[in-house]
């Protein structure tokens, strides 16, 4: 799966930038530490958008394309931020045979985003995951720490509504 590049405007703070610059300063003479810097950058920003990768590339004197190549090669790096309420739909075997694919697809329709993406308002992000250990409730999804089981596509709008109300966007 090719990673989706977030279209959400970058909203880094000066504090985050100072933290990243400190990380870069301590590794900038060793290009083999690129992944370490990227991991630390992701823990500061939550993901690795264009602006952050440019800071890393310029700071480490490594071409931006090389940084981007690493960020798209390893599953651990995200190019989209996680939403305030991250949704993971289980596509493990048990959930899959109980119709998780339809749930996943309907969520994409409702949210207007694809897997690995975040809604433009930053409220929801969507990803697939493998077994979360609740096969008895299949198909299941998690929103934040909350588990929802025995899902059918027509239940999803109602569940999302709850979070939208919470965020005052319903």
């Amino acid at each position: 799966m090719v990673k989706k590049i977030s279209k959400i405007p970058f909203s880094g703070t000066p504090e985050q930038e100072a933290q990243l610059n400190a990380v870069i300063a301590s590794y900038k003479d060793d290009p083999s530490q690129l992944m370490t810097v990227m991991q630390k950058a992701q823990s500061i920003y939550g993901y690795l958008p264009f602006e952050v990768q440019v800071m890393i590339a310029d700071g480490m004197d490594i071409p931006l394309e090389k940084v981007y190549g690493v960020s798209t090669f390893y599953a651990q790096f995200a190019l989209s931020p996680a939403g305030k309420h991250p949704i993971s739909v289980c596509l493990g075997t048990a959930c899959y045979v109980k119709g998780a694919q339809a749930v996943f697809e309907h969520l994409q329709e409702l949210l207007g985003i694809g897997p690995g993406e975040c809604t433009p308002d930053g409220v929801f992000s969507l990803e697939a995951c493998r077994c979360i250990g609740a096969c008895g409730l299949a198909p299941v999804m998690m929103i934040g720490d909350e588990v929802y089981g025995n899902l059918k596509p027509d239940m999803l709008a109602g569940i999302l509504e709850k979070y939208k109300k919470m965020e005052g966007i319903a």
Partner: protein
Amino acid sequence: MALVNLKINNVPVQVEAGSTILEAARTLQIEIPTLCYLKEINEIGACRICMVEVKGARSLVTACVFPVAEGMEVFTNTERVRNARKRTLELILSTHNKDCLACVRSGNCELQALCKEFGVDDTDYYKGANPDFYFDDSAAHMVRDNSKCILCRRCVAACDQQCISVIGANARGFDTHISSAFDKDLNDVSCISCGQCIVNCPTGAIVEKDETAPVLRALNDPEVFTVVHTAPSIRVTLGEAFGMHIGTNVQGKMVAALRRLGFDKVFDTDFGADLTIMEEANELIERVQNGGVLPMITSCSPGWVKYCEHYYPDLLAHLSSCKSPQQMQGAIIKSYYAEKMGLDPKKIFVVGIMPCTAKKFENKRDHQHANGPDIPDVDVSLTTRELARLIDTAGIYFKNLPDEEYDNPLADGTGAAVIFGATGGVMEAALRTAVERISGQKLEHLDFEAVRGTQGIKEATYPVEGFGDVKVCVASGTKNAKSVMDKLRAGNPDGWHFIEIMGCPGGCVNGGGQPVQHAVVRNFRDLKAERAKSLYAADKDLPVRKSHESPAMKMIYEEFLGEPGSHKAHELLHTKYEGRPKYKA
């Protein structure tokens, strides 16, 4: 030097320790096919075409990176090897756009040649899913079509070799594709348009942006006066496109072919090169005498200029304000020549035949329209390859053409101009003029040997009467330009006065617009040295070898420009530069 004994196809051979099987086989005149391998810059053993059998080895090995060992027995042509290669080709074809009939590289495609060689008779054998292919025609000079990409990464290696690295392999597994950071268009990153990726691509995945159509239109339009001029290096490379030996000088046949294509006038960009020397030497002397910015750096190579604009915008004041020979020639054709012949410059269509893809970017730049905003100095810039295609399409049997002469008056280039096509050539040409002008004494020995040759960086010091020691530096390939520019940023510790930089390794003879030679040739022959040798031979044979002694130069300055650096010369022959960002957000 330790030697190793081994047998290849039962023939004993002795080679240096550390050689690869590929190199050892070569000494026995055995060619092992390769796709991804580029000597020294792409030794990644990825494509698996060069697989050979080694007695006792667990599996087939990649000859391009596998080192030889004492007593090794290698077999390069067994049934197992042939089957493996055929299967690899079938797998490559499973995601390859087999739109071969009209592909620009058809007939000159390394993949196609191998498929024929290994008898790949079912190109759909592994037909299956295809990734989403990316097509990028955003840049002025080239087109990238990932549907024809085989992921050999030769373009990436070429781009890294230039220290540009704007393309690379992104994502992983089935989704792996070559693109720029954040999958941006090439036009939105700091690609310098050098085209080194194009000449290194084995297939049609990267090609120059073809501009032959507007040229053919102009040639067919009786209202349009078509003028073509050919860069110094084209005469020693065009022949390769017609199967002639590397370095063959085909100047006469090229002129004949251009006339048969229907151009009204065929001029020599050597005229523009001599003019560049007149202006550039004058600019250097002025900078030296008036405390201008030194060292001065040449500006003939548009790939280098774009590199400087993206990567060293703080040092742009070092660049000579002179336009390149291509643009000077165009500006003079549409002013002096138009006036002389009573032609409307708007009706003149100027085509430059260039060794270079960056020239396609250059002729569309700002400040390259000396004769009016709608009158570009050069209308279309074609590469050597595009010219070869025009000649082919026209059914001209190139090899059998007679030798013809360029048209006057914008011809009669000097030896100084002809060597512009090789690294060190512009420096040598400028020195022949500048040294004489500064010292006021006639230069007897014209060969500045120290700045010749294909080394990436060359330095020399020449004592000049009336000035002292002139310190010069010559760099080719932007990787070497980078180390020179880093020294300038650090305050020019070597005290250089004048620097020549060309964007491509070896200069224009190895430009991104030159005929494509397969890796099997590139890996074992020094194209840039062989082509450059012919240019220096041409220089030696010319009656006039200094730009300022050229009758054509005397004529243009007497009749039209006045003197080098005059107001008119500045309006027509000089330009401006702008800092450019590394990437557009």
